[in-house]
C-alpha cells in the first residue's frame, strides 16, 4: 500500500471504514510526505547567498527537514514542507536568512 | 448413577485440601469421574477447614458445596473426639472416619450408633508419631484408611498418586504411614 493511497482519501474526506488501515496503524513509512505542510506558512525564509557561510546550522535546526543541503554545502528551502517557523532565521550566525511575508 | 459425596474436616496446615485432592486423582486414575474442591477462607494455621470430594460413575455437573455427605472424614485427632460438631448433614447410614484410637472410641461409638452412622477409626496420630519420630502427618494416612473401609480406590493407586505428588523422604514417609493406616483402620460401628 502506498503512502499516497492511504493519505489521499483521508485528506479528501472520501473514504469508508474499509479504506482505512486496521486499528489506526500506519503500515508504510513516510506518509507525512503526502501532507504538504507548506500551506501552513504565513511567513517564509529567504536566503541571501552573498552572506551565507555554509555553516549548515539552519539545516541542523530545521524541525521539518525543509532546508535542503546541496553538494557544495550551500542550502535551499523546500517550500512544499516549510511551515515558516523562523528557526533558521534565529540560528543563522550571519543573518543570511530573513523571514518575509508570503 | 452412583454419586458419593465426601466432606473432609481438619485444621489449616494439616493438608485437608491435599487429602481430598489426592482422593479425586486416585479415583479418576481408576476410571471414575471425580471432583475435588477446597473451601478457602482466611487461611490460618490451626483454624478448622473443610474440603470436598465427589465420586461418580458418570460425569459430574454439579458445582456447589456438599451439605448432606455420604462420608465425613476428620483428620485432626482433637476434632475427632467431638465428631458431633462436624458431622452435620451426614446421611443416615453414612460413614465417619476418625483419627482416634480404637481403644478410646467408646463414647464416640455410642453417639454414632444412636445416630445411625457407621464408624471407622485409626490412630493416625500414634502411628505418625511412631513412624516419623515425632511428626504429625494425618491427611494421607486418613485417606488411606478411607480407601480401605469404603473401597474408593486401591492402595496401589494411592501409592501411584503419592509418587506423582511427592518424592524422596516425604514420599517414603507417606507410603509407610498410609500402609500402616490401611492395615490398622478398624470398623467400630458397622
Amino acid at each position, binding site marked *: 500500500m502506498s503512502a499516497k493511497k492511504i493519505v489521499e482519501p*483521508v485528506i479528501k*474526506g472520501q*473514504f*469508508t*471504514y474499509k479504506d*482505512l488501515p*486496521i*486499528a*489506526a*496503524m*500506519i*503500515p*508504510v*513509512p513516510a506518509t507525512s510526505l503526502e501532507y504538504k505542510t507548506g500551506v501552513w506558512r504565513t511567513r517564509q525564509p529567504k536566503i541571501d547567498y552573498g552572506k551565507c557561510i555554509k555553516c549548515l546550522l539552519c539545516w541542523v535546526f530545521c524541525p521539518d527537514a525543509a532546508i535542503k543541503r546541496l553538494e557544495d554545502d550551500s542550502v535551499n528551502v523546500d517550500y512544499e514542507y516549510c511551515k515558516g517557523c523562523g528557526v533558521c532565521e534565529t540560528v543563522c550566525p550571519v543573518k543570511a536568512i530573513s523571514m518575509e511575508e508570503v | 448413577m452412583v454419586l458419593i459425596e465426601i466432606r473432609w474436616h481438619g485444621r489449616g496446615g494439616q493438608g485437608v485440601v491435599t487429602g481430598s*485432592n489426592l482422593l*479425586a*486423582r486416585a*479415583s*479418576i*486414575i481408576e*476410571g471414575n*469421574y*471425580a*471432583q*475435588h*474442591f*477446597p473451601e*478457602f477462607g482466611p487461611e490460618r494455621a490451626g483454624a478448622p477447614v473443610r474440603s470436598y470430594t465427589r465420586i461418580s460413575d458418570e*460425569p*459430574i*455437573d*454439579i*458445582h*456447589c*458445596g456438599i*451439605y448432606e455427605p455420604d462420608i465425613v472424614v476428620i483428620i485432626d485427632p482433637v476434632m475427632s473426639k467431638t465428631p458431633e460438631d462436624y458431622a452435620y448433614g451426614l446421611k443416615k447410614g453414612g460413614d465417619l472416619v476418625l483419627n482416634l484410637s480404637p481403644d478410646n472410641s467408646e463414647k464416640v461409638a455410642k453417639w454414632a450408633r444412636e445416630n445411625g452412622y457407621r464408624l471407622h477409626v485409626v490412630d493416625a496420630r500414634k502411628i505418625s508419631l511412631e513412624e516419623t519420630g515425632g511428626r504429625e502427618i494425618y491427611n494421607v494416612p486418613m485417606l488411606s484408611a478411607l480407601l480401605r473401609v469404603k473401597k474408593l480406590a486401591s492402595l496401589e493407586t494411592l501409592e501411584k498418586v503419592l509418587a506423582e505428588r511427592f518424592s524422596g523422604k516425604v514420599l517414603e514417609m507417606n507410603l509407610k504411614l498410609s500402609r500402616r493406616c490401611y492395615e490398622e483402620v478398624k470398623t467400630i460401628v458397622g
Partner: protein
Amino acid sequence: MARQAQERIAIMGDEAIALAVKQSNVDVIAAYPITPQTIIVERLSEYVANGELDAAFIQAESEHSALSICVGASLAGARVFTSTASQGLALMHEIVYATSSMRVPMVMAIANRSLNAPLNIHCEHGDVMPERDSGWVHLFATNVQEAYDLTFIAFKLSEHPDVQLPVSVNLDAFILTHSVEPLTPISDEDASKFLPPRQPLYSIDFDSPATFGTMALPDTYMEFKYQLKEAAEKAGQVYPEVAGEYARISGRRYWYFNSYMADDADAVVLVLGSTYGTLKVAARRLREGGLKVGVVGLTMFRPFPEKQLVELLKNAKSLIVMDRAYSYGGLGGPLYMEVLAMLYRNGLRIPVMNVVYGLGGRDFRLDEAEAVLKIALDGARRGRFDEHVRWWGVRA
C-alpha cells in the same frame, strides 16, 4: 510430557489452562500473580524453567505492565498469553481497551473474582463486566474441561484474519480454578495442527517500518471504532467454524451456549459459568417429575449471540436470567439487561426475572437451583413474575 490423546487425567482448573497454553506453543507470557489465577502462571513459569515450553516468561511489576508487555509482544508477531483476576483486571482496564482497539490478538484467562470492597477472594463475574464493552471476545467455561478446550479455541479465534481481537477465557474463582476434575486432553500433535505457529497479518518489522497505536482525530476516529464493531461481530460469525475445527480433533463440540432441554421448555433459566452444571442437575430432577424446565449456560458472552438465543428462547413462556454481578443503580445484572433488550427488539414478550446470586463466592446450592427453576415455572404458568430483580438469599 507427551500425553496420549483421549486419556483421562485428573487436573485442577488453573493447571488445565496452563497445560492448554503450553500445548498452544505460546511465545510470550507476561503476568503478575493474583489469587486465584496464580497457579496458572506458576505452572507456566515451571514449564518454561524446565525447558518444556520454549517461551519468554516475564513477571511484570503490575498487571498494567503485564498487559502492556503482551501488547508489544503480540505486535511483534508472538503468540501471547496472560492471566489475571479481580483487582488485577481492574488495573489492566486502560490497556484492555488499547488491546482490542489496536486489534492485538492474545488470550487472557480471567479467574472471575469479586472486586474490592469489602476484600474478598471468591467467585463473582463483577471483575470482567467492566470489560464487557471493550471489544474483547469473552468466553465462559462451565467446568475444567471447557476451560481447557476454550483456551485453544480462544487462540484460534483471536488470530483469525477476520477477527484479530483479544479473547478472554473466564473461569469461576475456586469453583473451577481450584477444583480437580477429569480432563481428556488433546495430543500435542493435534494441538500443533490446530494451532500452527502464528502468521501475523502485520507486525513490527525493522525492514518495513509501520506505526501502531496512532492518534485518530474526529475525522477518522468513528471509522476505526466501526472497524472494531465489525470485527467483534465477525468473531461471532467465524466462531462455529473455529469450534467445528476443534471438534474434529477433540470430539467435543462447542456452541454459543450449553443448553439442557431448553428447546421445548416452558421455563428457562439462563446463566454464566459453573452454576450451569448445578442448574442442569436440578433441571434433570424436575424433568423426571414431568416439569418442563430448561437451562442455558452462555459460552460466548461477547459478541452476544442474539440470533441463536432468540431462536432457542422463542417458544419459552418465562425466563429467569441469573447474574453473578450487578449494576448498582441500574435495572439489574448485566446479563439480565442485555437479555431484556434482546427480547424487546426481537418482539419476544415473555416474562423475565433477574436472580442476582453468589456474589463474593456465596454458594448456590442444588436445592436453591431447584427453587429458582420452580419460580421460573410459576412465572410461566401465571404469565408474569411479581418482581423484576431478586437478590437471592440476601438477608434483607
